[in-house]
């Protein structure tokens, strides 16, 4: 019964083994121990500036949420686009309603000033 799943099991085992193998190998092969410079946070080769626990502007989050909204939109619309012909006008109407609601949200955000940085 479970026979078809055997390749999957093999793949799973291989990936686990591979992961462990890589970690162990890098530990064994890497030269030297930890120095002060090495354990410092890496910021593109520059000297670290200020406290890493700095508070971000709330605008980052607003933009992130905006992104997620449109991300989700994509996720919904792609499957619909693929089977648009089969879903017919009902599907088209559903997608239309969906986009309409998102548009209202977008207008709201726009008017609220979420798209302006200052």
């Amino acid at each position: 019964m479970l026979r078809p799943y055997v390749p999957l099991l093999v793949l799973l085992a291989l990936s686990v083994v591979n992961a462990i193998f890589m970690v162990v190998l890098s530990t064994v092969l890497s030269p030297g121990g930890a120095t002060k410079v090495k354990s410092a946070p890496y910021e593109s080769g520059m000297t670290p500036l200020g406290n890493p626990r700095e508070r971000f502007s709330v605008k980052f989050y607003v933009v992130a949420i905006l992104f997620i909204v449109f991300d989700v939109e994509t996720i919904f619309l792609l499957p619909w686009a693929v089977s648009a012909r089969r879903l017919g006008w009902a599907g088209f109407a559903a997608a239309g309603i969906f986009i309409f609601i998102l548009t209202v949200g977008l207008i709201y955000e726009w008017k609220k000033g979420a798209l302006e940085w200052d």
Partner: protein
Amino acid sequence: MSFFAALGRPEVLDLARQTHYFWALLPEIVLTLGAMLVLIVDVIHKGDRSEPSRGSIPVLTLAVLAATALANTALFGLRDVSANGMVAVDGFRTFTNFVYLVAAALCIAISMGYLERRGIMKGEFHALVLFATLGMMLMGGSRDLIMTFIGLEVMSVPIYVLVGFDRMDPRSSEASLKYFLLGAFSSGFFLYGIALVFGAVGSTNLTYIAETLGTGTDHGHERLLMAGMALTLVGLGFKVAAIPFHMWTPDAYDGAPTPVTALMSTGVKAAAFAAFVRIFAVAFADAGAQWVPVVWWLAAVTMVGANLVALTQGSVKRMLAYSSIAHAGYLLVALLSGGDTGKAAFLFYILAYTVMTAGAFGIVIANSRDGEERVTLEDYAGLGLEKPWLGAAFSIFLLSLAGFPLTAGFLGKLYILRAAVEGGQAQLAVILVLASLVSYFYYLRVIVVMYMRPARSEGWHAGAGLPLAARTAVLAACVVVVAMFFAGAVPMRWAEQSALSLWRQPAPVAASPAPASLFR
């Protein structure tokens, strides 16, 4: 409603046809559009983002609610052919929809003036109330567990925001966080319960579940079903605030802006209870042996515990919070009573309860001032003498909550008692009466303070009052509370017909309830 028939509404809906969903969901559609309209109008109207919203926004919101109520009348007498759709088309939904709309309208009405005083007059408030109402309608009107869950979330997320709407007030934020964490937790329980029920029965459709359990065939997943029911029960228990799942209630109710508290204790509770009835009293009706004893204890503990704790409260707002927990206990009795009488009693009581509780919170708002909430008992001293109308209205609401004759609360309790005795839950009826006796004490104490103690200082109550619209709403609530006693036969008949329509297959409305079902 020949009006809607003229517009092309079919007499019987077939939810296999997607266009029929338009009629089935007409009130929800109207409400959604209206809520979006409120949201957009508010931001477009405002020149400067920081300025408060215009006074026309609450009026627009009330208009949207009225339009939704009108759309809701399109559901009168409507039936569907298969009862397998995602949304229920029955009188129960029509009735409960009206309850949510009344709750939302009262919430908006009593928020007038209050929001300005607290400096939180923002259009989002009104839009969120509308979206929460939409969630209530979806949750209470669904015939599918997935839809119930979506409704639950659509209702809860706006409420989380609304509770913390006064973000400058730490108590409001605290209440919001607490409610959010526990609410999310309970949603998780609920969702997991749905999954297990699906695993046991093979469907999330309530009608299908009821039929499967009703045939009595061994589906071989007893334990899975029991676990699913238990988790669903926990999730709903949180939302209706039954002891021991009530811990969030006093803090959330106390910290939230008072109109939101009013909405939470009426509309949210009503929606959760409507779903409770649909899921437990209908879908799981034939698995009653498993859940009835548990809910029995929930009801008993809720009634006794909440009333006892309410005795010790020094804040009127907190007292009303515990009172609302206690009323959840009474409603659970109606739910347990089973039969059509039990459900009719539930409907009648939830309507009465909504009006009187929202009205009581309206008075709490009337007694608050700029930036401070006057909610301790001492703050009410002398109110009845210096503001006779406020005092009289509050007395009526409190007496109704206590279940005193001449008020809707009395008739509602009598209805529940009748249902309980007919349904063989006489012990719960006795507990209910004793719990009511305890409740007399704390409701009465407020009246004592209002009329028999002098005010804190001269002119203490000078600024108490409500703007005209809110005053009208509270007065209307007052009139309804009394009228529901004298002309109670009308809502009673309506509740009975609505309850009859609930039972599995949409049944034609019978003229009178059969007396043969006594003492089963």
